[in-house]
């Protein structure tokens, strides 16, 4: 019985780790080749508008409809993301950061992930949301 309680405690503590706020340490894990990848939709307003729809369907539940964050889940209108390359944003979307609470979105088609990158980039470039 004691072992079961101990196990539950460990599992609970580990789950709290999952809620820890992202600190940007994931950037160190991005390889140079991934960092240098360019967005095939860079500067494409229609792709950014499609990315906004995808963002609302998949990301807004944690990051908020305006990408300003929710509770401990970070804002995507941040200086860190302004500095990040398209390749770095695409990397975190594909791989996630599961021990910091960010799930992998590798199951989304790659082009849809790049559309989301275009939307996030548009947020940080102009602080204004694109309109379809």
């Amino acid at each position, binding site marked *: 019985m004691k072992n079961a309680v101990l196990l539950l405690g460990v599992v609970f503590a*580990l*789950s709290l*780790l*999952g*809620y820890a706020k992202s600190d940007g340490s994931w950037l160190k*894990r991005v390889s140079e080749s991934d960092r240098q990848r360019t967005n095939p939709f860079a500067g494409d307003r*229609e*792709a950014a*508008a*499609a*990315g906004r*729809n*995808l963002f*609302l*369907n*998949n990301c807004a*539940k*944690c990051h908020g409809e305006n990408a300003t964050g*929710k*509770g401990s889940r970070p804002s995507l209108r941040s200086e860190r993301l302004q500095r990040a390359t398209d390749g770095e944003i695409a990397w975190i979307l*594909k*791989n*996630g*950061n*599961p*021990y*910091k*609470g*960010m*799930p*992998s*979105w*590798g*199951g*989304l*088609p*790659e*082009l*849809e992930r790049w*559309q989301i990158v275009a939307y996030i980039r548009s947020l940080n470039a102009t602080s204004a949301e694109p309109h*379809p």
Partner: protein
Amino acid sequence: MSHSIFFVRRSLFALILLATPLSSLLAQQEPPYFVTYSSVMEEPGNLEIENQNIAAAPKNTNAFFAPTVEFEYGATAWWTAEAYLQGQATANDSAVFTGFRFENRFRPLPREYWVNPVLYVEYENHNEADKSFLEITDHDVITDQQVSNAELRKEIERSIEGKLILSSNAKGWNFSENIIAEKPVNGPDPWEFGYALAAAHPLALKGSSQRCTFCRQNFAAGGELFGGLGTRQSFGLRGTEQYFGPTVAFNMPGGVTVKFSPEFGLNDNSAGVLWRFGVSYEIEQFRDWFRRTK
């Protein structure tokens, strides 16, 4: 037989009626599988409620309808917990509650690879009247269902089940393979084995700039192959049920997903067709309901 077909049709019709008024927004990356698991986990804090149903009118056996209600919670980004409640209604017999299951899935690796493993552990407590077909192991065959519910419900099976889930994503495709091992813990039965394989692809690889309900991106199609692999003493396909079928899912804008699949029996041990229909609704950030700061 005509009564059986009527029973199946009536069940499907009732489900479609139930599903139609619903509309909401699901994680669009989840493949349209009924039996096979992929590496997609529930998003942390979200609660998905799914009603998964199966209807069949096997030859020489009474038609049946078996609903399962599933609660899937994203405890963290690498840990998903689920609970199931199961029941069934059999034509010319009765309707019975058949049992429950608790399962946990763990994604051990911290990033995406060519093959993404997920570890699955489940505890099942159900009687032999269970007709949910959530997985097939052992030498289970469809003629086992010829016995009345009154008799079948007397036999309780408690078991621990493990799965190794392997899943890959490439060019919009998802390929998933599950290897299943189950050990009854309330009897001397040996380890039982099964498998499930699946592949799926969304109908569009790019999102639309318009908000739309019937965009191709909201549909995914694929196929599933699954069946038993016998036991530790008699491993193999001989004397097992095997099924294959196409599967399709529609992610409605707003949170509801509807899935459908006819699964065709591949040998004489299997039912001719298992008709599956599922509706799921995702409650976003369910855990925020219990937090002061949202």
